[in-house]
């Protein structure tokens, strides 16, 4: 049996000039909160219309309200102060780091409300909830722990555990209450060469616990990895067997092709990050479809998603839109024949 192949959009969609202006006017007090919220909904609807037009019905809200994968989440966590700018892995992109100065615990926050609003905009565009899959992106426990400037926890392991159990799990529970069915956990630190092996192993275990917790709530989990080679954690991937696992297909020096990774590590549900969100070069349609088909044919693979390898903040909006159009066309073409 050949697995199903679907196109998807992961993580952030670039803030275009109009949305950037909206933010700028809001942040400088020239725009009321109501007008700002209205503007966000308009831009989200524009994005969902684009996705609907190109046949992509598995997506996020584009993280239009987020500065990066950590902010604003870390502003809603007790025990955290928002610190100086830190480079996001090897990109010319920076985030404000969480400085941990007390015990972590999630505060009341608007993230579930934002999800609920995105769900309603998606329903306007796509119709019934069965016709699309809206994912809520969140940073993973290891990625949060690695980004933290820890001034409180005596042990790194407690910090890692608390990001999962005291921040992510309660938040996901609230998201479940407003209709979230899928959370997209971003874990670049899992495959990033700079993360210590012992931490990676502990990070995978925490993810395993998170997946189990989510399953108990009826919520599916995607673990998106990027900027590194998934083979690095290959032997631990059984912990993630219930989740959709993301592979960055543009990692330099990867020892195995995505199809070999999937086969050798028994990945049943995979997201192929085959659309490069760090270069303006357009993907070749033939290569995209060839890769997707090759992975779908691997024995034991049940679901194949094809999407952007990493957040799309790194390319201009015009290029991101062009890439999504091409992706949608190629994957729709596959299902037609």
């Amino acid at each position: 049996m050949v697995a199903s192949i679907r196109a998807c959009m992961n993580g952030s969609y670039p803030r275009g000039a109009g949305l950037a202006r909206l933010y700028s006017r809001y942040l400088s007090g020239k725009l009321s909160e109501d007008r700002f919220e209205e503007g966000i909904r308009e831009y989200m609807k524009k994005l969902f219309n684009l996705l609907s037009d190109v046949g992509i019905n598995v997506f996020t809200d584009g993280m239009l309200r987020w500065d990066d994968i950590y902010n604003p989440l870390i502003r809603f966590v007790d025990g955290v102060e928002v610190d100086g700018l830190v480079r996001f892995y090897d990109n010319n992109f920076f985030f404000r780091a969480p400085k941990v100065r007390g015990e972590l615990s999630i505060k009341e926050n608007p993230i579930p409300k934002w999800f609920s609003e995105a769900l309603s905009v998606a329903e306007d565009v796509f119709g019934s909830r069965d016709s699309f899959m809206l994912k809520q992106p969140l940073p993973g426990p290891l990625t949060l722990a690695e980004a933290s400037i820890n001034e409180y926890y005596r042990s790194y392991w407690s910090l890692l555990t608390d990001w999962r159990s005291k921040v992510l799990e309660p938040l996901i529970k609230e998201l479940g209450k407003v209709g979230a069915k899928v959370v997209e956990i971003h874990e670049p630190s899992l495959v990033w060469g700079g993360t210590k092996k012992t931490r990676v192993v502990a990070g995978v275990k925490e993810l395993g616990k998170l997946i189990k917790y989510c399953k108990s709530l009826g919520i599916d989990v995607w673990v998106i990895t990027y900027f590194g080679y998934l083979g690095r954690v290959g032997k631990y991937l059984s912990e993630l067997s219930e989740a959709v696992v993301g592979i960055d297909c543009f990692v330099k020096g990867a020892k195995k092709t995505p199809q070999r990774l999937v086969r050798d590590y028994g990945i049943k549900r995979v997201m192929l990050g085959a659309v490069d969100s760090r270069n303006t070069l357009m993907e070749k349609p033939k290569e995209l479809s060839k890769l997707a088909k090759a992975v779908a044919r691997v024995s034991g693979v049940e679901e194949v998603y094809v999407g952007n390898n990493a957040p799309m903040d790194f390319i201009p909006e015009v290029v991101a839109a062009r890439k999504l159009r091409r992706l949608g066309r190629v994957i729709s073409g596959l299902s037609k024949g």
Partner: protein
Amino acid sequence: MITVVWKEVELPVLPTTVIGSYPRPKWLREFIKGFRAGRYKEKHLKEAFDDAVITVVRDQEVAGVDIPSDGEMRRDEMVEYFAERIEGFKFYGPVRVWGNHYFRKPAVVGPLRYRGPMVVDEYLFLRSVAKAKVVKVTITGPYTIADWSFNEYYRSKEELASELAKIINAEIKKLEEAGALYVQVDEPALTTHPDEMDWAVDVINEAVKGVGIKVGLHVCYSNYRVLKPYFDRLKVSQLALEFANRGFRDLNILKGLNKELGFGVIDVHNRRVESPEEVARAIRKVMKIIDPKCLYINPDCGLKLLPREIAREKLKSMVEGVKLVRKELARKGIESIPLRKEVTCQ
């Protein structure tokens, strides 16, 4: 115009300088908007830029900065500006750098070619209006231009960066011919891909090859542990590094530095103005590792994202903090240092 012969240049100990950019005055920002809307002619924009340079050099002089820059008044962004002046680049649109801040990231779509001087006129104008003996000219380095561009043409990033190194080298030599004494190559991207460090350092050395003036290298918001093994290999006389943003953690990596250090004491992403005492404390801390005769004092990075009045206050505080330490050094008979172009300072 002040002409300075190299051997005559003496600076006060702990010379104060800026990294490069400075906030554009509000009226200039409005004028640029007007120009883009077609309300002003190009010659009027040039006049506005010149006036702005005079204004921000004056800000730096009032604050007491020893080595001013022109505040990069004419540059919207550090990679964009050079990409617009080198043949072979194309712009698709802005990309985000952090929060709600963006830059027009260029794409290399054809062979690169040096069209001629890019910042020599900037230097000549700055030189003509600044009272300081030495001024600083900044130029974005080849590795950072390559790293912050989309490469659609060259077979590898290394090949692209090598082409850029030839162009930057030609530009620095033009600056030298024009009389510049101090050029700072900005390489904020340098440590972002540790596996590329070997060839990245070669590319930077290629960009400064055969240059007979002082060359500094600015690297910020970076993992300095990745940079440390290359201190010796870099053919520059100074490393200007950011430390205030990281709360002066990581100073230990400076052990064994055999060059001058441009020590970042002002956080450019925080509007709180540091006190002179805080600045002095930080300098005393770094002096336990670096000889004061090998030390310059500067903000962490360009000041352009701050409101102008805050940038001005921060510079004043920086200079006042330096004065506190200079008094202590004067008691030990250390009062001045030469402007060095040598690649070591020990």
